[in-house]
C-alpha cells in the first residue's frame, strides 16, 4: 500500500461561503464531500481529511537560528493554493487517481495527488 496526499487547490481568499459561489452551493458540496468521506472511511483507505481556514490565517515559524522567528501570512503568497487535504492509503496511483477524481467532483475543486516518500 502507498499513501498519497490529495491537496485541494483553490482560491486562497475565501468568499462569504468559503470558496463557493452561494450558500446553497456550499451546503451541497459539503454534504457530498461528507458522504464521500464516509465511504472512504468504510473502505478503510482514509487516513485523514479536513479543510483549512483561509491562507491569511497562517503563521510561518523559522527556528533555524537560535531564536524562533514568527511571521504573518502563508509561506507562499499566491492567488491559489492549498485549501484542504486528504491522506489516503491505497495500492497504487491508479487507485489514488480514481479517488481523487471523485474528490474533485464532490468538493468542486482541482486536486493535486502527491505520493508520500
Amino acid at each position, binding site marked *: 500500500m*502507498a499513501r498519497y496526499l490529495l491537496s485541494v487547490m483553490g482560491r486562497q481568499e475565501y468568499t462569504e461561503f468559503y470558496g463557493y459561489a452561494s450558500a446553497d452551493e456550499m451546503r451541497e458540496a459539503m454534504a457530498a464531500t461528507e458522504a464521500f468521506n464516509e465511504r472512504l472511511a468504510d473502505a478503510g483507505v482514509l487516513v485523514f481529511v479536513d479543510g483549512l481556514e483561509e491562507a491569511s490565517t497562517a503563521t510561518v515559524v523559522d527556528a533555524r537560528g537560535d531564536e524562533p522567528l514568527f511571521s504573518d501570512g502563508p509561506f507562499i503568497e499566491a492567488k491559489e493554493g492549498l485549501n484542504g487535504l486528504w491522506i489516503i492509503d491505497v*495500492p*497504487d*496511483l*491508479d487507485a489514488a*487517481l480514481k479517488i481523487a477524481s471523485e474528490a474533485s467532483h464532490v468538493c468542486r475543486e482541482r486536486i493535486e*495527488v*502527491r*505520493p508520500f*516518500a
Partner: protein
Amino acid sequence: MTAAPAAAEAVARTHREEWARVVAGLARRFGDLDLAEEMAAEAFATAVERWPADGIPPNPGAWITTTAHRRAIDRLRRESRRDAKQQEAFMMHDDSPPDPVGAVDDDRLRLVFTCCHPALSMEARVALTLRIVGGLTVPEIAHAFLVQETTMGQRISRAKAKIKAAHIPFRVPEHTDLPARVGGVLAVLYLIFNEGYLASGEGSDPIRRDLTGEAIRLTRLVRELLPDDSAERGEATGLLALMLLTEARTAARVSRDGELVRLDEQDRGAWDRTLIAEGLALVRERVDAVRAGRARAGRYELLAAINAVHVRAPHARDTDWSQIVALYGQLERIDPSPIVTLNKAIAISEFDSPQVALALVDTLAGSLDEYHAFHATRAELLRLVGRSADAHAAYDRAIELAGNTAESSHLIRRRGQLATPPRSPQKEEAS
C-alpha cells in the same frame, strides 16, 4: 559467413524481437523499471561481446533473459539494499528459469500501459515508450526529436523516477478504464508516427522512417496483445491500417530535391503495394465488423478508410471524392475538430467547387490561424478562384509557420507559380 557478422545480426534480431519481452519480464519480477531497462541493456551488451567468440546460443531470447536476470540479482546483492522486498526477490527468484514465452506477452502490454500512463506528460510518454518498449537508445530518441542527449536522458530518468515514487502500477488497467487507456496508448503511437511522417525542425530529414517504422512495429505489437474482437483491438486495427496506408506512399511523398509532393502529383507506381494490400485488408476487416453491427467506426479507421479511397484510385482524377466527403462528415460527427473540417473542405473543393470550400475554410480562421496547413489550404483555394494577391499572402503565412523543410520548399514553389506575384516578388526557382 564469418562468425562476427552472423553474431551481430543475431544480436540485432534478438534485440528487435525480444527487447520488450525481456524488459517486461524483469520489470514484473523486480518491480523496478529502471533496473529492468539497465539490466536488459547490459545483457545485450554482453551478447555483443560474447556471441562472436562463444557462438550464437540455441535460444537467443532465453539467453538474454537469463543473463539479464542474473545481472539484476548480482546488482541487488552488490548494492546490498537489504530491505524486505529485495531480500524476498533474492529468495524467490534466484536462479529461477525464465518465463515460458506465452506467459510474458501480458507483461509487454503492462509495460506499454505503464509507459503511456496519463499521469506522465505526453513528451515523457513518447520518450519512455520508445526507450522501454521500443528499445531505442537515448541518443537515437534525442536525435529523432532534435533535443540534446542530456535533455532526453533527464526526461526519461524523471519519468522513471515518477513511476517509482508515485507507484504507477505495472498492470493492465481495469476493464472500465480500458477504452480510455488504450486510446491514450494509441495516441502516443500516432504521435510517434506523425513526427516521423512530417518531421519538424530545420535541417532534419523530412521523413524519419526510423520513427514511422517503430510506430508501426509497436502498433502491431499492441494490437496483437489486445483481446480478439474487443473494441480496443478494433481501434488499434484502424490505427495500424492508417499507418500502413500512409507509410505506403513514403517513396513518392518527397521529390529528389527534397520537396513535398502533393497527393495528386505523386507517382502512384512508386507506392508500396505490399503495405497497401495489408492496409486495405485491415480496413475491410473493420468495415465488415461495423456492417455486421459488431463495432462502431472509430476515428483511426475512418482516417484509414479515407486513405483507402485515395490508394484505390489508379490516378488522382479517379478519386471518389463523394465518398471522401462522406467519410469526413462521419469523422466530424464522432470527433469534431477544425482540422477535420479543414480536410473535409479540401475534398469539397474537388467534389463541389473551390468557392464552396473556401467559404467553409474561412469559417475556421478563428481557431486555426496559427496552423500552417490552414493557410496552405486557403492559399490553394484562393488560387483556384483567381484571387492571386490573397493567395500570395496566405502562402507567406503558411511558409512562415511550416516546420518541415520539404513542406516549406513545396509552398515556396507554389507561391512562385502564382499568376501575379504582388508586393516584394520573391522568385524562388520552380523545378
